[in-house]
């Protein structure tokens, strides 16, 4: 039996409640299977007709939810939503078995039938069923009730459920991105802390641009960001509460603190601390505010990132003469180099939420690359390259990376545009994430629902 009893992580601004768990027969022989690893297979063709409106007032929501579901699935590269204009019929109701004869000629392998209703109290209810068209069997379903203003989250959660059922991987559509918006000439670039849904919607600036801000990272457990800000021209690591806008400096250090990232349990921030020109990796316990120094080498040691089990930290160091990747235990012991390919400099390592890979930026032969390697340094694969690509961040399912790409500028400063892109772990499906202005330093939120 399939039963959806998702617990949604509480957001102060968004409350979503599930009111019904659907009970559907288990599929013994589902014909649909999109393996994320086997990306070279054709994307799965899926029909996502407009949801059935429960009333005239729900008409627009019914169309909009289906549109966002289809857009989410399409952007993943694993699904090919069919053109609605080719449909031979419209679903008439959730309780009515679809007339599969009308969907098979379109080669729709999957069909989404949904309903959107508004209650007398003004609550939005959305229900859907995912059907295997050729097996003529239901695959999954979900029922969600919330304020109509949350309709996009409803659509993302439905897309997540479809993605999960068909790929076997967790969905990542109900997530957000914190990043840096950029405007103005390079010499006096204005940078603003910004946040948006993973598809670019619900965009919000979180800072005013008066202060230089860099490298935001999401807390894995709270609606918080840690980032670098230059208040009073002193670069320091800050904690920022997304809901309240309140922030605080982390620690009281004489020198620059930078390159912060949360530990997987959200209780620590690992960062670099500069002292007399030397940068070392330190970790701060957010409850006790105690700081422990993890590296002592007279080299640049920075960009630390915890493994998802919290037991190891990958970081970059030039102790061997050039910028390379190293792994150490979380207490600083057993520091060892993992990047050995000749001729490249490696930076910005980020451990995958699945633990199996480390993403990085590689500089080689005048070009920048986004790549991944296993934590022992083996299996290096370069996924994206360009004049300047940098700063990979993992979708919470460890299957998609986002990064930024900056192009060349001429002697008058024209060009040099910076944009966000996502790419599948296979190196396929590179997509620009549209932002209101130029963008850099993306950081993916954790999965919103667990």
């Amino acid at each position, binding site marked *: 039996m399939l039963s959806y009893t998702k617990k949604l992580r509480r957001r102060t601004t968004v409350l979503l409640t599930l009111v019904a768990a659907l009970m559907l027969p288990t599929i013994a022989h589902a014909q649909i299977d999109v393996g994320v690893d086997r990306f070279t297979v054709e994307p799965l063709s899926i029909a996502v007709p407009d949801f059935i409106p429960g009333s005239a007032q729900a008409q627009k929501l019914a169309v909009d939810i289906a549109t966002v579901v289809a857009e989410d699935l399409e952007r993943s590269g694993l699904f090919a939503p069919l053109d609605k204009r080719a449909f031979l019929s419209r679903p008439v109701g959730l309780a009515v078995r679809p007339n599969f004869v009308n969907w098979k000629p379109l080669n729709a392998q999957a069909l989404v039938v949904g309903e959107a209703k508004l209650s007398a109290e003004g609550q939005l209810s959305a229900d859907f069923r995912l059907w295997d068209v050729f097996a003529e069997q239901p695959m999954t379903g979900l029922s969600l009730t919330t304020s109509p203003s949350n309709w996009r989250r409803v659509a993302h959660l439905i897309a997540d459920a479809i993605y999960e059922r068909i790929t076997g991987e967790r969905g990542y559509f109900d997530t957000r991105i914190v990043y840096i918006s950029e405007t103005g000439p390079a010499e006096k670039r204005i940078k603003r802390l910004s946040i948006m849904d993973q598809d670019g919607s619900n965009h919000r600036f979180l800072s005013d641009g008066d202060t230089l801000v860099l490298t935001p990272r999401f807390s894995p457990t709270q609606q918080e960001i840690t980032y670098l800000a230059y208040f009073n021209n002193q670069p320091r690591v800050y904690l920022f509460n997304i809901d309240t806008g309140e922030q605080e400096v982390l620690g009281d250090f004489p020198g*620059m603190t930078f390159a912060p990232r949360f530990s997987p349990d959200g209780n620590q921030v690992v960062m670099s601390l500069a002292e007399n020109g030397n940068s070392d990796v330190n970790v701060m316990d957010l409850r006790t505010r105690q700081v422990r120094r993890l590296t002592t080498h007279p080299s640049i040691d920075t960009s630390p990132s915890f493994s998802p089990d919290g037991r190891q930290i990958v970081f970059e160091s030039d102790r061997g003469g050039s910028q390379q990747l190293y792994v150490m235990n979380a207490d600083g012991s057993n520091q060892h180099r993992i990047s050995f390919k000749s001729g490249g400099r490696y930076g910005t390592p980020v451990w995958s939420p699945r633990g199996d890979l480390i993403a990085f930026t590689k500089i080689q032969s005048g070009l920048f690359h986004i790549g991944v390697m296993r934590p022992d340094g083996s299996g290096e694969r370069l996924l994206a390259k360009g004049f300047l690509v940098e700063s990979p961040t993992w979708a919470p399912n460890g299957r998609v990376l986002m990064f930024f790409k900056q192009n060349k500028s001429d002697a008058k400063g024209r060009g*040099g545009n910076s944009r966000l892109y996502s790419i599948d772990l296979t190196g396929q499906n590179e997509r620009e994430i549209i932002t209101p202005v130029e963008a850099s330093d993306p950081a993916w939120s954790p999965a919103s629902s667990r």
Partner: protein
Amino acid sequence: MRINLPVVVAAAFLLAACTSASDEGDGSSSDGAATTTPSSSGTNVATASTGSGAKPGSQLDLEINVGDRVLFGFDQSTLTQDARTTVERWGAWLEVYPANRLVIEGHADERGTREYNLALGERRANAAREYLVSLGVDPNRIKTVSFGKERPAIPGSNENAYAQNRRSVAVLDAATN
């Protein structure tokens, strides 16, 4: 009297000899109209100030008559001989204006990752600071701040721009006086 080299010549020189390219005279010419006058040679900064229009002991004085920046080779933070000469002039200038304090800004070109460049800028700023301290300047008069690749002196994705952006810049501390 130094000659303000055209940028194209400077770029060729840099390609030929990267680590010896840190010429303060070239570097100071990159920062707009205020610095188009080459600095005079020698360390007699007090007399050099006259006739430039810059108020003695001011930031403009530092830029025009002393030279406010030193340049570094790619991924380098060691002061070149030229850079040391410039920093020695900063020391002499600080001796003439004992109330003045400096913030030394460290910068990097755009051909590195953001966090590494922040660390590299810190190293560059500190290299100049340490040399000043070794010359006898009170360490409390010199702060450092790294901007990494965030504040290039001049725009452009070319070797000349990169050479001028790999720099430490002496800025009169606002806390002065």
